[in-house]
């Protein structure tokens, strides 16, 4: 495929607002996970909550979109000059030539959960001010971001659970390749809500402790929240060698089970191989793999088989979910931004909270940071329903 330029990017997660705080947390190996004190949730688990979301105000004209998910999106749009960079791009290409493709799993469903507590006692009706389209519906975040950035191009939300905001890179890449658009704002926004906290708890997939990816004693995920945005553009003919590029995308389906990965990592392996093929790269060309690495027993063992079947056991790998928590529908975009930072700053981030790597898992799991040039990295994202996506990022030269 034709590589695309990551012209600008930003992220907000439990480890920080914007790139500087995110990079600092990675360099200091600082985790954003803390015991769950979200809303009225009474589950013993750790979460990656973003501080200050509820104090974030939406632009006056877009206040109808008010919900935690869109407040989190707004918080990220205000970081790192992202909004200005998009405005420059829209001036250059025209606002109809800039698409918006975002991933989420639950959008603003927290509003509906709260509205169900406030149903009229006689009628059972939801409160009058409850706005389904602008909060609950998955598209609400793309509608909000599109209007906030004053873009008029094609728009959609990808909803493939935990691979949602990885797959948006593939959608945008195809649209640009087909000539439908020249640039796209891609990313993911997923915020804490009761559905995911109680839902993953019901599947016995939430850990009591901060999650420990690839640890022998790993026992589940720590749910997080994040908003991450990337401005993807058709590259100019001359590129600075330091520019970060999207080099390859791969997507597959497990066709196995709704909430368990294929035990041998069949689909994961296919998406990794497709991404390598799209980027015209060999496994040995990849310097670091940012794993999906959720810290569930089944994900990590399936991913281990998939990765080692393609790369052997030498390639440095880690999951950054011990720092950020699992941002679900925003995880793909958040980890894409982490990969871009890793390449820019020559930092291979070690995974946090893991004290003893499971001896049954064979990939080369890093627990300490490494310094040194990174040319190309792969990021994995796998979702419920067996929806897999792998992305490859690298320097332009």
């Amino acid at each position, binding site marked *: 495929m034709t590589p695309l330029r990551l012209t600008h990017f930003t992220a907000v997660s439990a480890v920080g607002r914007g790139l500087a705080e995110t990079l600092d947390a990675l360099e200091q190996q600082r985790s954003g996970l803390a015991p769950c004190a979200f809303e009225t949730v009474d589950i013993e688990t750790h979460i990656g909550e973003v501080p200050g979301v509820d104090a974030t105000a939406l632009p006056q004209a877009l206040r109808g979109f008010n919900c935690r998910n869109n407040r989190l999106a707004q918080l990220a749009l205000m970081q790192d000059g992202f909004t200005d960079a998009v405005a420059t791009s829209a001036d250059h290409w025209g606002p*109809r030539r800039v698409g918006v493709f975002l991933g989420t*799993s639950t959008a603003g*469903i927290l509003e*509906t*959960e709260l509205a*169900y*507590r406030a*149903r009229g006692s006689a009628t*059972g*009706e*939801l409160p009058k001010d*409850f706005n*389904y*389209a602008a909060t609950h*519906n*998955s*598209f*609400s975040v*793309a*509608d909000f971001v599109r209007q906030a950035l004053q873009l*008029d191009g*094609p*728009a*959609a*939300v*990808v*909803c*493939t*659970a935990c691979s949602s905001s990885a*797959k948006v890179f*593939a*959608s945008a890449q*195809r*649209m640009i*390749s*087909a*000539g*439908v*658009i020249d640039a796209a704002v891609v990313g993911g926004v997923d915020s804490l809500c*009761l*559905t995911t906290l*109680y*839902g*993953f708890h*019901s*599947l016995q997939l939430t850990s009591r402790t901060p999650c420990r990816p690839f640890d022998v004693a790993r026992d589940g995920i720590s749910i997080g929240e994040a908003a991450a945005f990337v401005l993807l553009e058709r590259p100019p003919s001359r590129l600075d060698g330091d520019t970060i590029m999207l080099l390859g995308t791969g*997507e*597959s*389906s*497990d*066709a196995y*089970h*709704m*909430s368990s990965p294929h035990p041998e990592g069949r*689909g994961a392996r296919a998406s990794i191989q497709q991404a390598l093929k799209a980027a015209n790269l060999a496994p040995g060309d990849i310097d670091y793999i940012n794993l999906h690495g959720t810290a569930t027993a089944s994900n990590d063992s399936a991913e281990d088989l998939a990765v080692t079947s393609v790369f052997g056991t030498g390639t440095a790998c880690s999951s950054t979910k011990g720092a950020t928590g699992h941002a679900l529908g925003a995880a793909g975009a958040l980890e894409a931004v982490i990969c871009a930072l890793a390449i820019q700053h020559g930092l291979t981030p070690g995974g946090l909270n893991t004290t003893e790597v499971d001896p049954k898992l064979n990939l080369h799991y890093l627990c300490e940071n490494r310094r040194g040039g990174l040319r190309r990295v792969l990021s994995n994202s796998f*979702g*419920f*329903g*067996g*929806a897999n996506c792998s992305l490859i990022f690298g320097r332009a030269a």
Partner: protein
Amino acid sequence: MTPLTAYIEGIGVLGPGLIDWPSAAAVLSAATPYAPAATVLPTPLSLPPAERRRTSVVVKLALAIGFEATTRAGIDRSTLPAVFSSSGGDGFNCHEICQVLASSERQLSPTRFHNSVHNVAAGYWSIAASATAAANVLCAFDASFGAGLLEALTQVAVERTPLLLLAYDTQYPEPLRAKRPIPDAFGVAFVLAPGARASALAKLTAMLTESDGDRMSEPHLEDLLVSIPAARGLPLLRKLARREGGRVTLDYLPHMRLALEVEPCN
């Protein structure tokens, strides 16, 4: 933009008073009057019994239209990439979850939770059809049909692969229904291919436009078009049912619609 082209090889339809593509085509070509009736969803025999028991309206709907379109196209499902587009997920399941979470117990069923993902139909489709290729799952609220069609045409153009597009919506129960009044289940699926084969029904050439979307003259069908996002594709189905060539304009986003040049094959 460069126009996007694709050939339609198979169609599946299920909705109120429309049991499959031939019955829908008879209504849309005005050979048969439209008789509104509640959507009848078949049991998905393609799924293993354990999975079948857990399937809901949205899964039954997507499997029905997906199997109809691929059967009519005579194409191997297992290697076919797919684009799913829906304005919402499983509305009944969502209601049950919100009720439980608003209660003092908050004991969610694990099956309810994994069925709550927007890509639930894509997950069950992949299992039922042994389909291991990429499946994208989109939502664009009322623009979901257009978003799905644009994504599908783009994939066909760029990847040069046949593809299955499924656009479908189901209803919410009260109290959400009052806020999102989708009256009944409706879905349409197309097998799209990059080149003309003997099985091709029509060639589509798509552009983005600012022109208004076409309407349905039959009032009940216009009601479906307006009230169910997946039914925004009805003007295209009408053209295909009548085996007519010419332009169809479909609703997508505000100020952005999809203009399709339709050329019947054979």
